[in-house]
């Protein structure tokens, strides 16, 4: 019961309280790049969730079975970069071959994910916090869902902004930054609701 309770708190924490985009400011390039339309942000969210959950399993295994026994924790970053980048590449090849329809939706987003900071950041935080296997997975899925939530919120606002009468200098990225700031402020309201 208490374990389940812990996982639930970890998940909700990753989705809302410690939302990776809006309170930790990771993955901002995708956040601004892809949030122009709701459709593409949903595809991007799906790509992020799946890539992050699988890559966090792989990085957990490498961290647990290779790096820690040899006392090479300081190699984490560079090894994780290699692992994630090649995993995404591999995933792209496999999806292209076996699920061509999914590839049509995901195609470009997968490549955007490959070198993104949020995909690297979550496994690094998992390793830093010494999460076990299940906790790493839950944290990765939670932060992926949190990222999608932020992306979809942003895309919904931006689609409405298209039709609003915004002062000329703020059209485009300028106004978007302000909206992102407001969203982040709103999410700050959740801070401290779940003890770390």
């Amino acid at each position, binding site marked *: 019961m208490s374990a389940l309770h812990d996982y639930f708190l970890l998940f909700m924490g990753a989705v809302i309280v410690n939302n990776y985009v809006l309170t930790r400011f990771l993955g901002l390039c995708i956040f601004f790049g892809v949030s122009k339309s709701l459709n593409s942000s949903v595809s991007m969210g799906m790509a992020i969730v799946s890539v992050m959950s699988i890559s966090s399993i792989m990085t957990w295994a490498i961290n647990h079975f290779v790096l820690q026994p040899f006392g090479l924790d300081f*190699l984490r970053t*560079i*090894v994780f970069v290699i692992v994630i980048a090649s995993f995404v590449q591999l995933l792209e090849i496999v999806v*292209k*071959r076996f699920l061509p329809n999914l590839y049509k939706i995901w195609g470009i987003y997968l490549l955007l994910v490959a070198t993104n900071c949020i995909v690297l950041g979550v496994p690094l935080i998992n390793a830093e916090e010494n999460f076990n296997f299940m906790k790493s997975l839950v944290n990765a899925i939670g932060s992926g869902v949190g990222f999608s939530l932020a992306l979809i919120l942003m895309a919904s606002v931006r689609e409405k902004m298209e*039709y609003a009468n915004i002062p000329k200098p703020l059209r485009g990225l300028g106004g978007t930054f302000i909206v992102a700031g407001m969203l982040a402020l709103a999410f700050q309201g959740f801070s401290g609701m779940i003890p770390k």
Partner: protein
Amino acid sequence: MIAISIVIILVVVGAFFGLLLAFANSKLAVKTDPLVHAVDDVLPKGQCGACGFAGCMGYAEAVVKDPDVPVNLCLPGKDAVSQKIARLTGKINAPAKRLIAHVKCAGTAEHALRIFEYRGVRKCVSANLLQGGNMACKFGCLGLGSCVSECVFDALSIGRNGMPVVNPEKCTGCGKCKNVCPKNVIEMVPVTAAIRVACNSQDKGATVRRNCKVGCIGCKLCEKSCPHSGIRVENNIAIINHAVCLEKCTEAVCIAKCPTKSLQGAVLGLDKVDVVSNRWI
């Protein structure tokens, strides 16, 4: 000692993933037909979707792989492109009927009644959200030029009278403007269409008269006067059967009969558009 283990681990991890990727790439790679890229290179890359496929690449793929997809679907490319595709794919080329956009409204500020002054965002969609726009006629062109900014071929412009004008030379008939117009005021007609209706209103005659001087009042004079029954009135608006009209008509009596001049004609070689008045002369 640590230096050696760093080198070993990085080499092992790198080599493992490198070999894995190399293996996956050779075993699982999807072979794309080089012909698809050859066809894609021929297409004009407007990505307009007039062919009915998702972009130029989608059409290239379909036309190469599916024997039932004809080569003449690329409207912007016209005959030159369909000939090239036919040569590449070995299919038979049949010339497509060329369509162009036609704005079914002549309700300029002097002809059609405006009920308020619109000062919002200069987009037709936004204007349409505000009580359907500032025209008394709820079917007419709002004149804010969403079609103009949508056109990737630079074929539309706002004329001096405030109405969109189609350049028949540049228009490829892709239909993007038709889809973006909130009033559905744009219709695709054969480029040679001699008679066109310049009104979109489905209101009853009395309402049209009140709102606009040049609207179609659905009087059916054109329908009755046409000897080839190439024109009919439905929902208070004249609809032209262009196939009949182009084939059989020698003298367009309908234009002379029309009491409100909502029929425009380009009969007997007089087929130049007057940009200033937006009328066919």
